[in-house]
């Protein structure tokens, strides 16, 4: 329960009347709304009476894990959220970071896991639609999208249709809306068999003097409803997000929302036009829990109250009850608070874009959330209301927001961890045919080319994509013009998480996720300016899961502090488990970076006839939780991973300096599959971008390694980067001055990847074979 004592309602609240068709409210009904006895008692006490049916529905969604963060709030406080450039941290629709010259990057990542498992296309599409609205709500034009996906094991019977549906859904929304999807990541693991993850990220750019917040302002301000008409879709989507799945499965299809990207596109254009005219006090996207959460959140941020007349809400279904209108999650809807007298102009702009809009209520100073509706009146059928509206909800706003339940749930160590750590990787021996090992790794669905996926996303719409998917970070040029001054901003984006490392050590794994996304940015020549996260975990009522969550938060905080990359927003998705089995802990992290100028942009791929250097050195063998060990054992086992955050910071600063000084031709970090895979990617990755049948552009390499051991060749220790350079002496000098270990590996050239250890040739792989293996990695799942 909340720290605060339940607040007795000053007024008896008898004014709230039952609406025709309301179910009688008792604890049993509250239980079916997933409220605990304590929560139900708190609600009754706060009101001084039994809640109405609509009020019960409203409290259940506002207090759901999804909306209230009741299990996670106490931990999220430990994340660093402030920084010199931060204009808006967590708590708004999206985070806002200054990028100079009067412009700001506005970004956030959100999960849409449960809906995407039930209905992959619509679930993923509306996930993208929702995060797009979160960003343009703040006044920003969306300029880039990314996504992080997790599916079950490749041979699970459901995996192919889930992959196809989710990818098509993400493309279906983003492509039509017109936002380039410039990056992402995908992993497969049996822990996601019954609970996939779909995390969508969007970044927009806004003028710093035109950033809009979800606030209500003064009493008397008009409240407007803008966008799609309300239907029955998505009712209780927010509470569903806190359900575990069972194998009997998806009878929950009606709760999945249906997206309309065309309307989403009209909505963004209308909103951006409204923003340009200074007509608004505040604006809020109707996301999870729709009209309810948007109006409650707006009132809550301003200590205001609201009064809404549901009779005025545009609707597309007949016979909608107040309960349904309040809880519908119909997509493409916004709630606006206009400056008094500006309503007419807002309505006029909406009319230009052919979207519905209506004044549905006003801001009050009562601190109460008051909802009215007329019994036996359906505006889709009746011309006139048969009588005056009655009050169907009258709740103190604070009960739904600040005073909402929150928990510091018990934690416990996962007893199975010690056993996982005890696995002796030396028992796997040392392979003799490393070419075969490399090709097997490249053909793994967790490692190979993702182009089957990102070719279904329009990654170049708007004409500003400078680095396409497949490199360490996507790079987008944004043309910014203000007060007659035009300037190009180059933003870099990356998203990452290795749940296996988090499984083996939640704190280190959380830190590694942040370190890797920021390292990806640095490899593109960008400095991180802010981070957003989606914390996907199992059931928080399970103490070892709660411990994982808490430690991962600490790890993320450690790395964000070290790398000076504040968390400016994100979300939490709990109860990701099926039949009591949790997913791999997956705290997905996305980062935005700023590149000083166009000339500093670096890609991952080798160019011909340059020297190859390795920057950084391994902290530990890096075999625990590695792809290679997983291929050999089918398990996530081995020693806990390690990271030296100070060394990581030195490395990343060096990478940006090398990019800015034009000292390198390519930079690529080591991750899944370690050195061998990273080299193969440097050689062949460019092939992902070329038209069918073109192999020109790929560049071979010959390198020397200290030994042909698994830790050297396939260990995944972090903080290491392969660079190509025409001036190795200069890079070595800069590395030494920066305190970063540096070693010459070899030269680029030819059409093979050749790796030698002393006198011995470790492997020799023709690039066409390596590329074929990479390209085939998703074939077992989605076909050739």
């Amino acid at each position, binding site marked *: 329960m909340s720290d605060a004592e339940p607040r007795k309602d000053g007024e008896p609240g008898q004014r709230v009347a039952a609406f025709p068709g309301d179910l009688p409210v008792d604890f049993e009904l509250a239980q079916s709304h997933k409220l605990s006895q304590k929560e139900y008692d708190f609600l009754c006490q706060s009101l001084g009476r039994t809640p109405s049916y609509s009020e019960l529905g409203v409290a259940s969604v506002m207090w759901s894990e999804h909306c209230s963060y009741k299990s996670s709030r106490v931990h999220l406080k430990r994340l660093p959220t402030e920084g010199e450039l931060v204009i808006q941290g967590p708590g708004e629709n999206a985070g806002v970071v200054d990028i100079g010259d009067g412009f700001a990057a506005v970004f956030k990542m959100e999960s849409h896991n449960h809906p995407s498992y039930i209905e992959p296309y619509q679930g993923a599409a509306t996930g993208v639609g929702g995060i797009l609205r979160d960003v343009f709500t703040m006044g920003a034009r969306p300029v880039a999208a990314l996504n992080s996906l997790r599916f079950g094991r490749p041979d699970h019977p459901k995996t192919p249709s889930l992959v196809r549906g989710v990818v098509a859904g993400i493309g279906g929304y983003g492509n039509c809306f017109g936002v380039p999807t410039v990056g992402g990541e995908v992993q497969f693991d049996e822990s996601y068999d019954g609970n996939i993850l779909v995390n969508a990220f969007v970044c927009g750019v806004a003028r710093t003097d035109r950033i809009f917040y979800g606030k209500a302002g003064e009493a008397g301000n008009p409240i407007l409803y803008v966008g799609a008409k309300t239907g029955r879709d998505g009712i209780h989507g927010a509470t569903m997000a806190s359900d575990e799945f069972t194998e009997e499965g998806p009878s929950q299809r009606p709760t999945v929302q249906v997206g*309309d*990207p*065309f309307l989403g596109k009209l909505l963004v254009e209308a909103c951006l036009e409204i923003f340009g005219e200074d007509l608004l006090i505040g604006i809020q996207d109707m996301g999870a829990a729709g009209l309810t959460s948007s109006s409650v959140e707006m009132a809550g941020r301003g200590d205001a109250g609201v009064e809404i007349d549901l009779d005025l809400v545009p609707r597309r279904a007949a016979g909608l009850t107040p309960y349904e209108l309040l809880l519908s999650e119909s997509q493409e809807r916004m709630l606006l608070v206009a400056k008094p007298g500006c309503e007419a102009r807002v309505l006029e702009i909406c009319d230009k874009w052919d979207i519905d809009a209506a004044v549905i209520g006003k801001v009050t100073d009562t601190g109460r959330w008051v909802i009215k509706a007329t019994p036996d009146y359906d505006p889709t059928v009746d011309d006139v209301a048969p009588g005056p509206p009655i009050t169907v909800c009258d709740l103190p706003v604070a009960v739904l927001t600040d005073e909402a339940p929150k928990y510091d749930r018990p934690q416990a160590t996962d007893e199975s961890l010690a056993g996982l750590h005890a696995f002796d990787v030396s028992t796997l021996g040392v392979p003799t045919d490393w070419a075969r090992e490399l090709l097997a790794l490249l053909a793994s669905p967790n490692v190979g080319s993702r182009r089957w996926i990102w070719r279904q996303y329009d990654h170049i719409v708007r004409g500003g994509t400078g680095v396409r998917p497949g490199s360490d970070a996507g790079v987008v040029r944004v043309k910014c013009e203000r007060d007659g001054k035009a300037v190009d901003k180059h933003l870099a984006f990356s998203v990452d998480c290795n749940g296996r490392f988090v499984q083996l050590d939640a704190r280190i794994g959380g830190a590694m996720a942040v370190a890797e996304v920021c390292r990806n940015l640095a490899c593109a020549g960008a400095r991180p300016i802010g981070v957003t996260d989606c914390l996907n975990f199992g059931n928080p009522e399970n103490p070892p899961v709660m411990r994982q969550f808490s430690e991962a938060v600490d790890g993320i905080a450690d790395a964000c502090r070290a790398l000076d990359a504040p968390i400016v927003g994100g979300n939490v998705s709990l109860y990701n488990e099926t039949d009591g089995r949790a997913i791999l802990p997956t705290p997905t992290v996305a980062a935005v970076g700023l590149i000083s100028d166009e000339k500093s942009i670096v890609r991952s791929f080798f160019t011909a006839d340059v020297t190859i250097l390795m920057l950084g050195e391994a902290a530990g063998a890096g075999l625990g939780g590695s792809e290679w060990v997983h291929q050999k054992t089918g398990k996530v086992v081995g020693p806990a991973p390690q990271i030296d955050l100070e060394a990581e910071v030195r490395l990343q600063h060096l990478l940006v300096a090398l990019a800015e000084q034009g000292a390198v031709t390519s930079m690529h970090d080591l991750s899944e599959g370690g050195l061998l895979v990273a080299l193969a990617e440097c050689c062949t990755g460019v092939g992902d971008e070329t*038209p069918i049948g073109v192999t020109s552009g790929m560049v071979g390499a010959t390198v020397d390694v200290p030994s042909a051991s698994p830790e050297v060749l396939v260990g995944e220790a972090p903080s290491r980067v392969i660079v190509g350079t025409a001036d190795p002496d200069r890079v070595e000098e800069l590395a030494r001055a920066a305190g970063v270990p540096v070693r010459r590996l070899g030269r680029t050239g030819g059409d093979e990847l050749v790796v030698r250890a002393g006198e011995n040739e470790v492997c020799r792989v023709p690039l066409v074979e390596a590329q074929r293996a990479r390209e085939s990695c998703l074939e077992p799942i989605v076909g050739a």
Partner: protein
Amino acid sequence: MRAAVVLFPGSNADTEMVHALGDITGSPTSLVWHKDAGLPTGTDLVAIPGGFSYGDYLRPGAIARAGAIVTAVRAHAERGGLVLGVCNGFQVLTEIGLLPGALVRNSHLRFECRDVFVRVAAAGPFTENVGRVLRLPIAHAEGRYHADEETRARLRDEGRIAFQYCDEAGSLDPDANPNGSLDSIAGVYGGPRGNVLGLMPHPERASEPFVGGDDGRSLFDTAIRWHEKKSRAA
């Protein structure tokens, strides 16, 4: 050359079209909303950008009912004015009858965004060197060019097949055809003087080295030269 970029409600490739015409080739470029009464005075080139105009609800005739601007574009084309439709803009031109044929779902049924090669198959206001191979990006789910045999024979005979998908060397390899277009057709000329061009690849997204290539710029530069020649002649 004065350009006007026509915005339909779901146009989303207007930014890069305006950038290619205005910033890169220096043509004064204005935006025209589909509800506007007509084209700006002195418009020489009308560009219809990519996007999803009218969302998934695109049906033959849906655009034609949309407003005065379509009438104005048709009149501009009939006077011999330049019209360029890219991607969804090509679809719009076939819908309103300015170009023959139709663009239907890709043979592999997916949206696909990647670079392809096309060869210039006919000279015209936007193309000079027949046989030249350009690397341009595509980004569409419905780009498979379809027309009956008789129409395609006429297009061939009249030299109105503007672009065909090909491999790097310019051969019409079926594997290089990304969407199953008949006769590998990627773009078609129409209008009384071959002044209307529709194509599925995006030249405006390949008009500067920053985005990975500038092969697409040749279409805009050629159109400018064609227009200047025509103006001098007049």
